Each structure stands twice: as structure tokens, then as C-alpha cells.
């Protein structure tokens, strides 16, 4: 078998600088899960439909199954493992728990990343804006109502 040529990249993941060598055809999803062992980001449809693989790259959500790891060279990446603050759940994560938004839980890391990015851009979204903001995240357990409630409750709680 041919030796696959790897490319050296440097990126920041959840605030920590990482230097690693990646195969050009490995996606950011592959590298997060397999090389960096951050398995909170889920692999599912691999065609950009479900959002289970959503992470934040330089402030914007992307489907990490549709981005090559080499493309993240120099970028700042946040995964679900980076949401907790000083080892405690973020208000958004706590609201997901509180509202019973997680059923089987598989889609939740992606939902959290989309919701986190939405609230950063739009701290007081309407229900319609939450639904549009999370339209790229499917939930097979159909917990959409609880998920939207959790996002709206987080926005409300931020005022208090």
C-alpha cells in the first residue's frame, strides 16, 4: 500500500493549540473524533443533512463532515466539549437538561453548537428564528419543541 502523504496543520480546539499531521482526505470530523478523541461531535449522514457533526469554526457553524481537516489550518474550532465553563454546564446546556430536550441524545451536541452560535449572533431570538437557526439539525427523537424551549429559556435567563 502507498504511504499516504500527510500535511502538518495547526489549529486551536476549545482554546487549546494543537499541531498535528492529517491526511488530505480526512475531514475535520474524522480528525476531531479519531485523532483528537473528541467524540462528542457525532458522525451520521455524512452529506450535510443532519447536523450531528456541527462544530463552530471561527465563530460560524459548519458541518464538519463537509470540511477537510486541512481547511481548518489556522482556525479556531469549538466543539461541544468546549461549551462547559470551568467544568460546569453552560446555561444553554443546563437548559437542555432542564427542559428534557435530550431524548436519546445523539443529535444534542450538534443542536447545542447551532444554538450556541445563534444566541451569540442574536441573543433574543423569536421562536421562528430559533427554528430557522436550528433547521440544519435533525432530531430523530423529534424533541424539537423541548429543544426550542431550552434555547428560548436560555435567552430569557441571560437577562436575569
Amino acid at each position, binding site marked *: 500500500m502507498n504511504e499516504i502523504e500527510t500535511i502538518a496543520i495547526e489549529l486551536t480546539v476549545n482554546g487549546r493549540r494543537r499541531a498535528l499531521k492529517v491526511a488530505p*482526505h480526512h475531514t475535520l470530523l474524522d480528525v476531531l473524533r479519531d485523532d483528537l478523541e473528541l467524540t462528542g461531535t457525532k458522525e451520521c449522514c455524512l452529506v450535510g443533512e443532519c447536523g450531528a457533526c456541527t462544530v463552530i469554526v471561527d465563530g460560524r457553524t*459548519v*458541518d464538519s463532515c*463537509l470540511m*477537510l481537516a*486541512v481547511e481548518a489550518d489556522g482556525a479556531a474550532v469549538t466543539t461541544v466539549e468546549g461549551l462547559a465553563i470551568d467544568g460546569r454546564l453552560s446555561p444553554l446546556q443546563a437548559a437542555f437538561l432542564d427542559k428534557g430536550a435530550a431524548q436519546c441524545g445523539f443529535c444534542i451536541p450538534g443542536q447545542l453548537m447551532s444554538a450556541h*452560535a445563534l444566541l451569540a449572533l442574536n441573543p433574543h431570538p423569536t421562536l421562528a428564528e430559533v427554528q430557522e437557526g436550528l*433547521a*440544519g439539525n435533525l432530531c430523530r427523537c423529534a424533541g424539537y419543541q423541548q429543544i426550542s424551549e431550552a434555547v428560548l429559556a436560555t435567552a430569557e435567563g441571560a437577562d436575569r
Partner: protein
Amino acid sequence: MHTFAYERPATLPEVVALLGRHGTDARLLAGGTDLIIRLRDGTLHPGVVIDLKRVAELCPAIREEDGRLAIGATTVMTDIAADPRVRRDFMALAEAAAVVGSVQIRNRATLGGNICNASPAADTAPPLLVYGAEVVAAGPGGSRRIPIADFFVRSGQTTLEPGELVTAIELPLPRRRMGAVHVRRSRRRGHDLASVTLCCGVDEAGWTRLAYGSVGPRPVLAVDESGMLADPDAPEAARAEILERLFTDASPSPRSMRASPAYRLAMLRTLGARALRTAIQRLAEE
């Protein structure tokens, strides 16, 4: 996924040289929302992938110059949908950009990629046709402009020559006031490719420009210069006849699984009539 060599050129001449060296073995990568899927499913297996996102001349930017709004090829849908100049003069393009896929897709999907992929369902194609956009292409022979109406051939096929790439899409700033709107029909709300994607523009001289996609091998532009369509007081039967004539180039494929030809044609008429009303209304409110 098959492995490949990855190139990340920093300048346009480097891209052109790489394309010249590798020929059909090379593939350009912009946002990857079409390409990476095809690399993974094996329909494409290039030896070299050339990433355009760090090419200085292609940097994502929207600039006003010489009576045109120039949108860099790697500008993503999120930025097009939010840009105040696009929203002021080319609202239907902002509307189309805002319905491409999901937030995650719009954060990656580029305008250049949308037109070069040349899907008949590409949502930005109808507004670009209505606004009379020009595609700026660069290649070994230098740079040239291609009217968008001469750009699409069929799915995956454009009139770009081998060795050429798109550097920008330019929209002439409107000389006459125009009201325009983008509408589409998809199987479900949220992200899905359109069964019909359509844009209608009406200007103050009475011209109606109607463009539609996903109802044939390539997006189509049809124009009425009689002024009748744009005039809500013209006889209804005459207007209906003209509108019908603008749909004659629709030829939906019976092989598509997304929607039957009969459904697409019915939706084309419904959306076309609706978009015409909205365009007239928007012109009046201008």
C-alpha cells in the same frame, strides 16, 4: 474517501498554473458542500484538489466598482444574504442566498460554487439571470466576462473552458427601478433542493424578466418587453397568454425523484403568477 494531493495556492496565477499542470486530474474546492459529497461517494476521484479559499484575488468580498457590484467567487451565502448593498439593489439574490440549505451550509456554500456546480436547481441562478449578471473567468489566456445567460449548459457543465475558473460574479447596478422577488417550492421546509426555483423582476420601463430552474437541464430566462405583463390593468386574458409563453422553455425530467413533471409545471405556473404579483407590488413600493 479516496486520497488526493491538496494544494492551497495563494495567488490567481498559481491556480491557473496548477490547473494547467494537472488538467482534468485537478478539482477546484470552494466551500466543498457539493464537492466533498462527490469525493466521498466516489463519483469524482481527482488526483489533486485545489483549495481556492486562500487565493488573494478571490477573497470573499463584495465591492462596488464602475457601476457594478462585484461579488468575489468565494463569498458565502451567509454574507451575501446579509450584505446591505445586495439587499438594497438585488433583494431577490439576497432572498435566494438565504434559503440555500441550512445555516451550516450557508456558512460554507459559495456563490462561485453554486453556479459552477451548475445544478438546474441552483437557487442563485434565477436572480442572477434576472439581474443580468456577468461571470468573470480567469484562465491561461487572461480574464473574460461571460453573460450568465450563456454560462449554464446542463447539470455540472458550464461554458468555462478547461483551465478556467470563476473569480467573481458582477451585477450591473440598476439604471431603472426594479421590483424583484425569489420564490421556490421544496418538499419540506428547512433545507432541501428546490422542485421549482424562480425569480421575477419588473422594471419601471414595463419589462418583465422571469427566470426559473429545476424544470429542465439548465436554468432559463424569459423576457416580456411588451409592458403588458407588468401592467396589472391590462386585460387578464392577454396577460395570462404572455405569462404562459414565458414558461415554454420548461422541460422537467420525468426521471427525477424529487417531483413529477406535471407537478413541477403546475408549481411553476403558480409560483410564476405569485412572483409576478409580488414584483409589481415591490416596484410600486420602491
